Structures are given as structure tokens and as C-alpha cells.
């Protein structure tokens, strides 16, 4: 079965590289601040041991007090998976750095999250709505979206 990397070790490795970046972790996940997502992403991808080559999927969950972005990674060489989470507080004009520079696969998924959840991704090549039409009022997947 795919080995899921242990949260503690990865958090410790991240903190050894960039102090205090990994805020919290449990057995398979690590939480980070949204603004240093790109730095952590580059590190996870380029580090020899972790070597997470593929960004598998990005999900956004609306926990009312905060939005949680869940990044699932996968290393094909080491057949291992890893989950990185980032919490962004507040409900209006949330800004999260885009990971398109690190993994090209994030492009369409981030546009979908912006379209359905309303989280803006800074310096994304063309952040437009992908599933709904341009003039659609509001973001349907939010918990407070009442049409």
C-alpha cells in the first residue's frame, strides 16, 4: 500500500529548514500558514527524501470560522502520499498564494476552488471562473450560500 509520510517527521524536517513554518501536525497531516505555502511546496518537491512529485488534488472545506485548503501529494518514485493543510480565516477576499509555479497541475483545480469557494489565488496565470459563467453571483459551495 502507499506509505503515508508521518506528519511529525515531515513537520520536523520543514521546521529544520524554515523555522516555525509547520504550525501543527498529526500522524499524517501537517498544517502550515497559507502565505508560506509556496516555500513549503518547493521544499517538499525538491527534497531528496520526501520528493513529492505530483500534486494529487486540492480540496477546500468551509468550516464557517475558517476555510481549510487540503493539498494531497503523491510521490511516484517512493510510492508515498502526504497531506498538507492550510487554514485561512475570515470570509471575504481571502488571498492564498497559488502553487501553479511549483506544480502545473494546480492550475485548473485552483480556478475551480476560486469559482465554487471564493478563495482568490494570487499570481495565478488566468484566475477566471471555470465551471460557472462570469456573472454568477456568489460562490455556491460556501455554507452560507443561499440562492
Amino acid at each position, binding site marked *: *500500500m*502507499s*506509505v503515508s509520510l508521518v506528519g511529525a517527521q515531515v513537520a520536523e524536517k520543514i521546521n529544520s529548514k524554515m523555522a516555525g513554518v509547520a504550525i501543527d501536525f498529526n500522524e499524517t497531516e501537517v498544517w502550515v500558514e497559507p502565505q508560506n505555502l509556496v516555500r513549503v511546496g518547493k521544499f517538499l518537491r525538491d527534497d531528496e527524501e520526501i520528493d513529492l*512529485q505530483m500534486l494529487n488534488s486540492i480540496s477546500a472545506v468551509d468550516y464557517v470560522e475558517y476555510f481549510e485548503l487540503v493539498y494531497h501529494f503523491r510521490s*511516484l*518514485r*517512493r*510510492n*508515498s502520499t502526504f497531506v498538507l493543510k492550510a487554514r485561512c480565516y475570515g470570509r471575504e477576499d481571502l488571498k492564498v498564494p497559488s502553487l501553479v509555479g511549483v506544480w502545473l497541475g494546480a492550475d485548473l483545480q485552483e480556478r475551480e476552488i476560486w469559482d465554487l469557494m471564493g478563495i482568490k489565488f494570487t499570481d495565478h496565470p488566468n484566475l477566471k471562473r471555470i465551471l460557472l459563467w462570469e456573472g454568477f453571483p456568489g460562490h455556491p459551495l460556501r455554507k452560507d450560500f443561499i440562492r
Partner: protein
Amino acid sequence: MEATVLKAGFDFTGIYGFFDDLLPESLDWLAYVIAAVILGAVLLNAIIISTALYTWFERRVLGRFQSRMGPNRWGPFGLFQPLADLIKLMTKEDTIPEGADRPVFTLAPIVFLVPALLVFSVLPFHSSSFIGKLNVGLIFIIAITSVNTLGVFMAGWASRNKYAMLGAMRGVAMLISYEVPMGLAVVGIALGAGTLSLSGVVLAQNIPFILVMPLGFIVFITAASAEMSRTPFDIIEADSELGAGYNTEYSGIKFALLQLNEFMAPLIVAALVTTLFLSGWRGWGPVPGPIWFVIKSFVIVLLLLWVRATWPRLRVDQIMGFAWKGLFPLAIINIFAMAVEFQVLRDDTTGALTTGDLWIMAAANWIITIVSLAVIANVLGQRKLRRPEPVPSQLANMYADRPAPESATQLSGEVD
């Protein structure tokens, strides 16, 4: 050269003669006109009805190819289907897109249809068919078949639709570049038969020319199937990319005319190939001439259908490359071979070729065909088709977390 077998019975002179006796001397031109009108009407209706029947036949055979029935609801075995189509198309509203170039839009189907009908007029269905003896038959056919290029562009340009425009541009490029090999293949026949008139060609074919010049046959049938934009060259109305190519915006009776032309094209090619290569109406046994003509063109039509049901389409640039780099040299080789053989073999006085000479020419031509096909195929790029062995890349290792089972990298697909 001409075996003038004046048979009684129903032929042109008969009608003319009949009316000539009826009318007074001064009106003999009128008899000529009436005879021409009657014969024209007969020919026209025969062709259009046979095309309608052919649409039914093609859809049924294509159905059989695709393990389904084909139209069988209307009339016995679906024979009224073409009638039903015609009624549907005539009753459908004949829309002209807004902003279209109206005169050109309405004229295009006619420009399509007229050359198709004219070609039939020249074909010698029977030994005593009068028009078949037109002494410039071959050149007439080559000239007429190139008119529908104009029709394609008129239809594509006038319907002011990007897809139609793309289809038309492609069509014009392809049709013009396939005129050349078709014309050159016909030159080979003219050399072999010694005359340009179609009935002369038929009479000269003691051995069907398909055996005498196989290279000419291959070039002609490929160029002709490109000329009528059938698979594998149907890029004009390539339905998977351009919707319906130039006839996207047509509907109603105009579309019926375009369809009529599209389904008449295989009949024309079949009739042409039978006249030029399979010695037209000549055949042994009790079966009369015209029936032989129909049987042979029926076989060619089946061949065209068979190819249409199976082969995919070539891309535009590949088609052009194939025309100029593939068919053009083959046609020239064919002409060169025929010219040399003709010069060597014909006896000096009458300049005619005996059947014996034809057999020698056939043998020589077959060798030349095989050699030139192999050379052209290699030149055209068979190398590209070889495939390097698949090698699993180092970027992924599915068994990283556990020992790899022994039969891990067996890539061949055989099922034990």
C-alpha cells in the same frame, strides 16, 4: 478503327430518322432538337433515379458493414427511402444564412450538378451509342470534372460560416492538386488506345487496360476518389472536424442537390473506371453490352464502398504531399513506360497495337508498377512508422514500498 455496327432498334439515328420522316424537309433541325431532348431526358432521369437508388444501396451496404440493418421501414426493403428523403428535403425550409452572398449561394449547387450530369453524356454505354463517339471524350471528361472545384469554393465562400470556409479552402487545394495525377493517368490510356474518343478506347481494349497498365489504374482510382472527396480523402466535409464542411449552411432542396451530387460521384467514377480500364461494354456470352457495363461499374462501386467503410481520413498536408510526391511521379513513370512500349511495339504502317503487343506491355508494366510502388512507399516515409521499445521511466516505481513481484515488467499484451 471504328466498327460501325449500325444496328436497328432503339438508338439516336432511329429517333431522328423517325421524326425526320414525319416533319417536312425544312424542319429537319426540329427533328434533331426533339431527338436530342428525348435522349437527354431519358439520360437525365436514368442517372437521377439510379443515384437515388444508389443512396439506398449505399446506406444498406454500409449498414451491413456496421452489423446493422440500414433503412428498411419505408416500402419493400426500404426502397422508398430515397423518395422519403426527397420529399423531406423538398418540404424543409430552404434557409439562406443572413449575410450570405445570395446569388453565389443559390448558384453553387447547380455548378455542382451540371458537370456530374455532363460526364455521363459522354460515356459509351453501348457499342452504337452516338455521343460516346465524341472524338475528344477524354479531354472533355477531365475538363468537366474540374468544374466542381469551383462549386466547392462557391458553396464554402457564400455560406459565410467559418467551418464552411475552412472546408472550401481545403477542398480547392485538394481538388486542384488531384487534377494533375488524374489527367496524367488518362494520358497513359490515350497512348495505349491511340484515340481520345471513349468508344475508341473501349474498342482498343482487347485486354482490359487494368491488366495492361496497373500503375495507371492505381493512380486513376486514387485520384478519382480524391476528386469526389471520398474516404480516405474526404476532408472537404470532414464531419469529425468541420461539421459538414461546405454544405453546413445548406438545407431544403439545395441540400438535396448537393447530396445528389455527392452520391452521383461514385457512379461517375465507377462508370469512368469501367470505360477506361475494364473495357466498357465488351463482354463475352449472351449478356448484352450495357449489362456488362452495369456489372463492372457495380463491382467498382462496391470497392469504393468497402474502402469508405473502413479507412480513416488523411490530414490535409499529408493528402497534398501524397498527391505531389506520391501520385504525380507514379503517373509520370506510367506515361514514360507506356510511351516507350508503344514506340517499340507498334508496327510502322497502321500504328495499331495487336493483342500480343498488349500482353508484352502488360508484363512489363506489372514489373514497373511493383518496383515503383516499393520505391515511392520507402521514399514517402515508412521509416517513421517503426516504434521504439517502451522503457519504464525512472520517475515512478510502483513497488517502492515492497519487493517487486517477479513478473512485474512484462509489457507484451498476450493473455495466458
